[in-house]
């Protein structure tokens, strides 16, 4: 069952010499409980695709054509009012830099409770209990105490766990994770990816995983779409795309992955 269906999406930015199209005819489908990895180099249009889905394109960019169907509803033509309900409620998003993505002057609990209460009519006491439960669900040790912690008091991995809890507070059906582990230590990366995968399975989330790291895509995703210069040049199952790349660009990306030199002790 397709949950997110993006068809022929085209994003334009006006420049002095006419429009540029950093996202140029992108089509994607993700079903419930499925992970699609969107891979590509920096500037290939991955993040802008995600922001277009959220209706959060930076000014003066806008969607020129195409459709973004979420559960049948076309978000590309939805009014801002409706998009505000969709954000956080139907789509959750996790960003690359966990420290910068948390408001530095508000506690973790404050930010979590705010999101909970923005989407549901929930009493303060109930919201704080739910917040503690959510932090526990993302594996933050000593969750109840962490509610009163400031962002700078947590480690990178703990912050990303808190952000995942915040992103899932509105019980969205789609989670967009934009380079969720790129700013983390390698050892923490695997933990966060495991957590995302477990949450996807438990909650039947549709997941759009944006990454430049083919290893991440290979281990996490059911299907892969490769993006270059605003277009999807190749897509299919992980096995098809990464084992037998049909497109030159995919092959080039695969070759760019560094290998440990032979003969290393």
């Amino acid at each position, binding site marked *: 069952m397709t949950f997110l269906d993006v068809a022929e999406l085209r994003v334009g930015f006006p420049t002095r010499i006419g429009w540029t199209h950093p996202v140029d005819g992108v089509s994607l489908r993700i079903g419930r409980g499925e992970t699609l990895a969107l891979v590509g180099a920096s500037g290939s249009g991955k993040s802008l695709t995600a922001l277009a889905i959220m209706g959060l394109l930076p*000014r003066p960019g806008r969607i020129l054509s195409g459709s973004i169907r979420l559960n049948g509803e076309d978000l590309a033509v939805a009014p801002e009012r409706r998009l505000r309900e969709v954000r956080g409620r139907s789509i959750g998003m996790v960003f690359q830099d966990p420290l*910068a993505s948390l408001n530095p*002057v508000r506690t973790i609990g404050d930010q979590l409770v*705010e999101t909970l209460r923005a989407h549901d009519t929930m009493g303060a006491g109930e919201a704080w209990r739910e917040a503690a439960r959510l932090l526990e669900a993302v594996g933050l040790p000593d969750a109840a105490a962490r509610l009163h912690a400031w962002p700078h008091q947590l480690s990178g991995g703990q912050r990303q766990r808190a952000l995942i809890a*915040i992103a899932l*507070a509105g019980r969205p059906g789609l989670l967009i994770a934009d380079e969720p582990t790129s700013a983390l230590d390698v050892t923490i990366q695997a933990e966060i990816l495991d957590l995302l995968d477990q949450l996807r399975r438990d909650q039947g989330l549709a997941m759009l995983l944006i990454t430049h790291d083919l290893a991440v895509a290979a281990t996490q995703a059911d299907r892969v779409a490769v993006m270059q210069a605003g277009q999807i040049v190749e897509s299919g199952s992980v096995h098809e795309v990464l084992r037998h790349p049909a497109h030159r660009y995919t092959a080039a990306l695969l070759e760019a992955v560094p290998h440990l030199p032979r003969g290393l002790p």
Partner: protein
Amino acid sequence: MTGSLARALRVALRSQGGRTGAALLALLALAAVIGPWFLPDPSSIPETLAGPLGPVAAHPFGTDQLGRDVLSRTVSGARISLTVGVFAVAVAMTLGTLVGLVAGYAGGLLDAVLMRLVDAALAIPRLFILLLLVLVWDRIPLPVLILVIGATGWFSTSRLVRGEVLRLRGEPFILAAEALGASPMRIIGHHLLPNVAGPVIVAATLGLGDVILLEAGLSFLGLGVQPPTASWGGMILDARPIVATAPWAALFPGLAIMVTVLAANLVGEALQSALDPRTA
């Protein structure tokens, strides 16, 4: 209050200047609040006119040419000056923060129009605007004086806040909040406001000294607080004819102005360096 702000306050109070300034301001406020219970009526004129008396035990600061006690007039002037200062600064900071937040977050045409208006307002000297507004009233009521001073003092604050908002708008946590469905009002109130509170508080403390000087200046010109209410500027105005023979009548209110402005600036500077990550 937010944690980083409380931390900055603690750091500011640990510095020598911050502590001195805060202690002086607290002392002034205390004197202004409880002074009138212990001191003679500031506007009472003795039946037998003795002329200005030098400082003696009964009148530590002396008396003015009408025989009024300079100490109790100075203390009662502190009431006026601190009231005008605190409330006018509150008015100015509220207006400046509001305009800055809206202009910075909305951007586009609204931002351009608001900031051009601020540019225009900043190009006119504040004293001229104030003189013009104050001249409309023959005897200006205190609340109006406060509003007028506050309404002409928010321009640079709005610029400061707008600049902070423009910087914050690029921060991922604002985008993250938008991605959670936060409305513009929520972004402004819950995410931008707490982050601009620090610079605004610094601007407010530094602005307090300016406002007290301004009020003293207006009262000295006879346009601010009206007699017989004692105000520091007004006292210096009254003491003009006797300044050579009874300098204490002008000296003590003048000292009071200087000490208050100095104290406010000491606190403001300590807060500023406490909030600056390079020195804190």
